[in-house]
């Protein structure tokens, strides 16, 4: 089959690889009908996430049609249309039974590596380095779906792929970020980053009762997409974010701050951002953490900072003193996708939201390598790429 294969930093290729086989009776094989490139794939592409190996298949936002089921799979049969969330979960472990699916205790086989890097091991993830299990990803023609009964959701055949595809990751991620922010009716919510996750954070914040949403980015088409609603925007190339947020909130600061940027923040004018860039260029830094630093400084006292953006290592100059003395609450984490996918599917089916608004490119798998660069470099007005294997 064809698949997008990681070879090195900035080097992803569309190659022929062996077809997957069922080697666990709880797994099944799907023929991938749609699969997306996620912003966090770019961290792998740029080798910010260590523990990638040449030959790894990327992709953690796939959906498709079941073509073969293992002997212990009960809930699915050949021909079912399914979405495959990026987290692989077992179902009965301590964490899964509490809805903390991205912390599943059993699906990440690389415990030693994960413990060395993080203290404990998170759940296994598709196509997301050997820190999270080294599972083959879904940017491919076929995918072995692990722990199918616990992990996967069946969707109606008559609904277009792009309306449900983002239940695999970015819609639940945006929703959980807004939920983690603890939004109360009337709150002012500031969202750093208007990429795909940021766009879902914005819409989720509105759906949870925010009184005002302010989106921060510098890419015109992303700000425009955020502005399609009544969201106010800040272009950080034009104004100082802190000053503008204080102006908008009369010096109080946003009640809830969401960092949907993560470890590859851009900012040309800030000293800390230039320092981060220099460190990562010469290989002695792991994260460019300007967005979360700014969110902490801007957040109102006793407010909340929610972090759906991916961080990978040891960012420094973290203003913990400001966070402590202002009494901020932090919530973050990989998304417990299985907790949200079914209720959010109901919202999609009920017409409350059409997640396909975020799609700007629909491309064949063969254009995947170029799509990675186009998406990363924010060219061609690219916000979200869906690949059709």
């Amino acid at each position, binding site marked *: 089959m064809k698949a997008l294969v990681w070879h090195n930093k900035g080097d992803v290729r569309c190659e022929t690889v062996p077809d997957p086989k069922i080697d666990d009776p709880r797994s099944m094989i799907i023929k991938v009908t749609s699969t997306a490139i996620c912003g966090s794939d770019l961290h792998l592409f740029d080798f910010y996430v260590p523990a990638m190996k040449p030959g790894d298949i990327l992709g953690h936002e796939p959906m498709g049609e079941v073509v073969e089921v293992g002997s212990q799979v009960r809930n699915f049969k050949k021909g079912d249309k399914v979405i495959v969330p990026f987290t692989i979960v077992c179902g009965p472990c301590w964490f899964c039974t509490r809805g903390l699916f991205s912390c599943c205790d059993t699906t990440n086989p690389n415990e030693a590596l994960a413990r060395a890097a993080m203290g404990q091991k998170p759940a296994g993830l598709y196509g997301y380095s050997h820190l999270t299990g080294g599972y083959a990803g879904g940017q491919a023609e076929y995918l072995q779906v692990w722990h199918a009964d616990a992990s996967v959701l069946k969707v109606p055949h008559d609904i277009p792929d792009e309306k449900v595809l983002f239940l695999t990751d970015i819609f639940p991620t945006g929703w959980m970020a807004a939920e983690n922010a603890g939004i109360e009716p009337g709150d002012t919510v500031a969202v750093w980053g208007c990429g795909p996750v940021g766009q879902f954070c914005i819409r989720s914040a509105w759906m949870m009762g925010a009184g005002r949403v302010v989106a921060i980015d510098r890419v015109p088409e992303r700000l425009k997409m955020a502005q399609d609603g009544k969201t106010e925007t800040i272009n950080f190339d034009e104004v100082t974010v802190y000053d503008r947020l204080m102006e908008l909130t009369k010096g109080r600061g946003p009640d809830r701050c969401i960092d949907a940027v993560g470890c590859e923040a851009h900012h040309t004018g800030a000293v800390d951002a230039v320092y981060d860039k220099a460190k990562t260029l010469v290989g002695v830094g792991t994260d460019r953490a300007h967005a979360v630093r700014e969110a902490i400084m801007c957040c109102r006292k006793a407010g909340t900072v929610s972090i759906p953006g991916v961080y990978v290592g040891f960012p420094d100059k973290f203003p913990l003193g400001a966070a402590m003395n202002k009494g901020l609450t932090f919530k973050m984490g990989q998304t417990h996708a299985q907790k949200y996918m079914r209720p959010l599917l109901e919202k999609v089916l009920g017409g409350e*939201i059409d997640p396909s608004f975020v799609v700007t490119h629909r491309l064949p798998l063969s*254009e995947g390598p170029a799509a990675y660069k186009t998406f990363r470099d924010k060219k061609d007005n690219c916000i979200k790429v869906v690949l059709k294997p």
Partner: protein
Amino acid sequence: MATLTAPRAVARDLPPEYAPVPSDQKRVKTTLPQEYRDQPADTPLATFLGLFSLGLGLWEVLAPRDVAHRTGTPYPALVRGYGLREVAAGLMILGSRRPAAGLWARVAGDALDLAALAAAYAEGNADQRRKAAETAAAVLGVTALDVVCARQHTFAHSTC
């Protein structure tokens, strides 16, 4: 499957401005412009050459007499100027998503280095000639890497 927890109660619907766009009005691109399809893969070689350029340049700027002595060239002021050029090329390579310009700048710089080494060889004593010849051999090796890498980033096509 564990019991699913419903998301928080929805306080309100999305504002009407976020109403779904009818599918026939959506504009989704189904191909990439040729210039984006032809982008070469990033290569570790470019990163190496960028770091090499930066390191060598700093050495030349900070210790031009030492560099001049080791390479058999009697022009420390020129060495410092070349150092600034090396630093600029390194930053162009490391700081850009498309490092071809910085790599070709290195190739041009290599030519200048070789010209200076040729002049030093012509003017120098036996020891200086030996050092200049050894340095020229090293520069030629790096030049080959520069040309290979610059061509990759200028002419290479999609990896698919």
